[in-house]
């Protein structure tokens, strides 16, 4: 027995070539609770697809896995870029000898990664025919590119035109020139959306680029059953990457199942059909001992601790909020009685009750547009209104929202008052809706629900058709700008889902862009937050603290605040 195993090991060692370190016999099994949408970096923006992109494509720079707070380090470049004195010109030197994963599109040739690939990948986000969800990050940022986009009109971008902003100096040198300095530029480039694609591959699979990702990252897409299963295999051409003496990636195969319902997801983890998993909300109390005095103080239940299950926790860099459509004739507008209506609704919502009952204490209330852990956060600012339904009713009375004969309030002009909230159809949505219903009942305001799938509601909102909806925003990069832009007037109908347009806010936001992180910028952020609190386009929600579990045999298990996945670092020793 023993002998045989040694023999197999020797053969395996002989068969392994090049920098390939991954053990193809090791299979990491994980699950997503939301279906992915596709794997073209310029076409998708959801976290789940992003998690796959992160492993298939290589951005220029990335984050150090171990350093906290998150630190940008070179990825495919020799070093961090040299930046000109005015902060506008970034020059990247690529490492030679990085190859794309073998693919039919390369006709049997080994295809090296070059600066032109990055230029092409960045330009794709500007292509009108692609309609990238990330265009807000690149639109108007690069020198001379606007003319190129304009020339394209509604057609495809001419990728061969040389532009000043995105220049390939030689095979390994890329120079990016910005119109204005941007303190977050490297963090933006570290996002999976800015990984390098090969033009041949994109053109070869033009009809369905979402299904054929070809990159230089540690894994390649082996099999994809949309909404069901994603299988990744180690990229045989992956460059030699050594961290702390360990060559990456360790695991040869990653199997991602899509399990939308909480109960089967949890059972799959408990039965070791999954190696790593988050804890679904319904299972939180089953899995954790939560201290009622301080709900964030948790430990694993004994039965799981005994099995050697590892618990990792992180406070997400996110905020949740319920927004009002500020252009809506009923709930929008900046007249005093409109503000009073929004304020009253915010005051009637029992936020702490939902944190206790739905989040099981695994969340903290939001008081500032920028969450903790993101540059610009102010822990002393208390922006959320106090839960006080009695005062909320008194406020509505003061502004002429009279209670009619049917026991419901009317608008000050006597018209009937009815508010529609958009919502999904899952069990969790229903729990939230019960609290909203209760809040509106206590105000004697009629509430109806508009049910729909997330993408449908998102479309309706872009067309300005919703009145209220709840959203979450997670940091793309850990800077306050990424959050404050959620209410910037020019982003209305896009990232600014509340359609909030306030001249003073916009002026302050534009001023804040010119400043680095620091006391001066924080002062502007405080002033902007005060406008948000006063105008109440949002009802602040909470920031979740996520618990992830891994079985005993999973090694190197550590969550990163910004990277979606850490699969390449993980080892399995069963």
């Amino acid at each position: 027995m023993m002998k045989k195993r040694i023999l197999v090991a020797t053969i395996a060692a002989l068969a392994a070539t090049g920098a390939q370190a991954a053990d193809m016999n090791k299979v990491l099994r994980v699950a997503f609770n939301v279906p992915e949408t596709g794997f073209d970096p310029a076409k998708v923006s959801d976290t789940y697809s992003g998690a796959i992109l992160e492993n298939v494509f290589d951005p220029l720079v990335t984050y150090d896995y171990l350093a906290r707070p998150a630190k940008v380090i070179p990825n495919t470049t020799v070093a961090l870029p040299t930046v000109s004195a005015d902060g506008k010109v970034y020059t990247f030197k690529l490492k030679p000898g990085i190859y794309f994963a073998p693919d039919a599109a390369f006709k049997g040739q080994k295809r090296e990664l070059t600066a032109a690939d990055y230029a092409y990948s960045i330009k794709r986000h500007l292509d009108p025919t692609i309609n990238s969800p990330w265009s807000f990050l690149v639109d108007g940022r690069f020198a001379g590119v606007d003319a190129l986009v304009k020339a394209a009109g509604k057609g495809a971008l001419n990728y061969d035109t040389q532009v000043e902003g995105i220049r390939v100096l030689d095979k390994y040198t890329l120079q990016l020139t910005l119109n204005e300095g941007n303190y977050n530029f490297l963090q933006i480039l570290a996002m999976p959306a800015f990984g390098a694609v090969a033009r041949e591959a994109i053109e070869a699979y033009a009809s369905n680029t979402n299904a054929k990702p070809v990159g230089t990252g540690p894994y390649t897409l082996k099999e994809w059953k949309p909404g069901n299963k994603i299988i990744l295999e180690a990229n045989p051409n992956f460059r030699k990457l050594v961290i702390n003496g360990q060559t990456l990636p360790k695991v040869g195969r990653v199997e991602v199942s899509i399990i939308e319902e909480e109960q089967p997801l949890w059972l799959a983890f408990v039965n070791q059909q999954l190696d790593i998993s988050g804890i679904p909300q319904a299972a939180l109390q089953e899995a954790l001992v939560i201290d009622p005095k301080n709900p964030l103080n948790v430990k694993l239940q004994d039965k799981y601790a005994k099995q050697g299950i590892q618990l990792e926790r992180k406070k997400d860099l996110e905020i949740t909020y319920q927004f009002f459509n500020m252009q809506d004739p009923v709930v929008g507008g900046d007249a005093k009685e409109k503000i009073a209506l929004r304020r009253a609704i915010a005051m009637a919502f029992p936020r702490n009750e939902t944190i206790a009952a739905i989040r099981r204490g695994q969340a903290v209330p939001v008081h500032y547009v920028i969450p903790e852990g993101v540059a610009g956060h102010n822990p002393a600012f208390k922006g959320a209104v106090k839960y006080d339904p009695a005062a909320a009713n008194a406020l509505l009375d003061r502004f002429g929202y009279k209670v009619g004969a049917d026991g419901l309030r009317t608008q000050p002009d006597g018209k009937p008052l009815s508010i529609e909230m958009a919502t999904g159809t899952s069990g969790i949505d229903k729990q939230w809706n019960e609290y909203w219903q209760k809040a509106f009942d206590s105000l004697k305001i009629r509430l109806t629900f508009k049910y729909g799938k997330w993408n449908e509601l998102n479309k309706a909102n872009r067309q300005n058709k919703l009145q209220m909806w709840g959203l979450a925003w997670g940091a793309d990069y850990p800077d306050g700008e990424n959050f404050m832009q959620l209410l910037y007037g020019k982003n209305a109908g896009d990232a600014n889902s509340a359609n909030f347009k306030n001249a003073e806010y916009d002026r302050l936001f534009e001023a804040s862009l010119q400043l680095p992180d620091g006391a001066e910028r924080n002062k502007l952020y405080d002033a902007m937050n005060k406008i948000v609190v006063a105008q109440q386009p949002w009802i602040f929600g909470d920031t979740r603290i996520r618990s992830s579990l891994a079985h005993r045999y999973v090694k190197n298990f550590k969550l990163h605040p910004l990277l979606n996945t850490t699969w390449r670092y993980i080892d399995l020793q069963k």
Partner: protein
Amino acid sequence: MTSQTTLLADDASCPASRSLWQLGWQRLRRDRIGLTALWVVLAFVLLALAGWLGLAGSHWRDEVAKPNMPPALFKDYGPATVELTAADIDAAQQHNTSIADASAATGMSAEDDPLAADMAAAQTQAANAAPLAVTPANDSLLVLGSDSRGRDVLQKVIQGTATSLLVGLSGALLAILIGTLLGALSGYFGRRTDDLLMWFYSVFTSVPDMLLLLAFSAVMSRGIDTVIMVMALTSWTGTYRLMRAEFMKHKGREYVQAADAIGASHRSRMFRHILPNVTHLLLVQFSLLTVALIKYEAILSFLGFGVGISQTSWGAMLAEAPAELLQGYWWQMAAVTLFMSLLVTAFSMLTDSLRDALDPKVK
């Protein structure tokens, strides 16, 4: 019945003639299982009536107990989890706040907020007014326990019975109406009318039932009325085929020809002459449909397409079950399962007995 006997007493040689319905009732009364099932169904209808009239289950939305309390009989068999409350979260925040910003509490000053004066006035007004009557969550035991919001599961299940039966009965009635009307037209007139209606029928049956249900409920808004409409619109097809065949068969019979001879109109022949002769089939069809629709409603609500937040039904309650079971709260599902299986079984048995009783060929 006695008056009839006296009426016919003149002709002693002829035994009292009984209608199909009377014969059916007689046969049903002899069927012990059928009769029991009938009583169970009647009891449920009474319960549902009480629910509709607000005599029972009308306070199902009140939070009367602690969340997730096990039923009284099984009070020691619930999971030993501690439920967090809003007060815990408040306290934890107070604690964290005092650590975080002992130095400088930045908040809004009066000039930042256009509503500052009104807010202050509203708060004083609210503070001066009598505090809202807050019923404290009590420890009293409930027969069927409480759900995640501390609502009485018994009240919920009664209200659920009312909704489910309302949906089942009125959905079935509406489906029968549509099916009978179209079936009658199709079978009686034949030719072009039949072709057209058959084509219409084929379109409906070519789409899988569940898909059709979901499609209809996706376009229409929420509420019991929508669910009923959706059910009726998707389940009339069976009745239509049956009625079409019956009308085809009957329209050539002598009694219909006789009616034609004395100048009865089409409408009169269809609904005064033929229809009464096929209603016993409709009764069976009706109870079959009711059972099916009660189950469909449960599926729809389970998938999140059923009744809204301010209403409850068995399906809506079952939709809460997976998350509850994961935490060991089994009683809501047990209660619904018990009620639902009892009614559905009783209804199915009653249907069986009705078919036996009303089929003239079975003696």
